[in-house]
């Protein structure tokens, strides 16, 4: 597993752990009201689970297992992938800060960071969504 995927998947696991912790607190607070301010955790729960966990995990795993290029760099330009990972995490945490600090004006830059991460993620993986060398050889043989 490449270093990038180790970081992506471990960050995804950390967001998963935080996301389910917020979810558990919210469910307990629904059943036995502890404090109304805990509802501020709801947007964090949603964003940590969707962006921090699922999107980040998919990115980390895809970077690892998608077909590689013949020449170097075999997984494409790593700067694209690292930039996507950094922007994604900045976006998730800025959105969390917006909710906790009651600063709705931070939501737009947070979403913009996440959208920029999505663009870079797509750019990083696009060329690697291709047949493997074995698959290509099989297709060539079938065409002959």
């Amino acid at each position, binding site marked *: *597993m*490449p*270093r990038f*995927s*180790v970081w992506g*998947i*471990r960050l995804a*696991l*950390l967001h*998963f*752990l935080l996301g*389910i*912790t917020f*979810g*558990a*607190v919210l*469910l*307990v607070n*629904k*059943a*036995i009201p502890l404090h109304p301010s805990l509802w501020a955790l709801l947007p964090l729960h949603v964003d940590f*689970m969707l962006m921090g*966990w*699922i999107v980040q*995990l998919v990115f980390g795993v895809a970077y690892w297992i998608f077909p590689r290029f013949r020449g170097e760099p075999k997984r494409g330009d790593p700067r694209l992938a690292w930039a996507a990972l950094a922007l994604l995490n900045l976006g998730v945490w800025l959105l969390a800060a917006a909710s906790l600090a009651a600063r709705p004006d931070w939501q737009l830059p947070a979403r913009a960071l996440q959208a920029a991460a999505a663009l870079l993620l797509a750019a990083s993986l696009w060329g690697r969504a291709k047949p493997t060398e074995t698959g290509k050889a099989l297709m060539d043989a079938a065409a002959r």
Partner: protein
Amino acid sequence: MPAITRWFIKASLLYLVLALGLAIAQAAGLSIPGLSAVYFHLFLVGWVTQMIMGVGFWFFPKYNQQRPRGSEAAAWATFWLLNLGLLLRALAEPLFSGQAQPLWAWVLVASAAMQWLAGLLFVLNSWPRIKER
């Protein structure tokens, strides 16, 4: 494919069918408080997360030669805690939303604890397998 992975995957497929069945029922006019939250969690926890857990247990790099997939016992505990917790939530949330009885409140608390523990076990068991070769 190890047995635990088959259980995770088959359970996740059942949750997908269940979640979409619930979506059909809601679209057809079934309106019970708390049902939307149940739908989202059947879909995202029962289907998506459970599929990830099952495939991850199978697919992540080996922990070591003796225990290539880490702790099988932790994986089974994850499976049962997640599913029992999720099913209890699916049952208790609409009942609690309709009538806030203490019994259903405590079932929801137990459900939250079980699902959280399942997630913690999954992370602890997976973490050492996420490594460079």
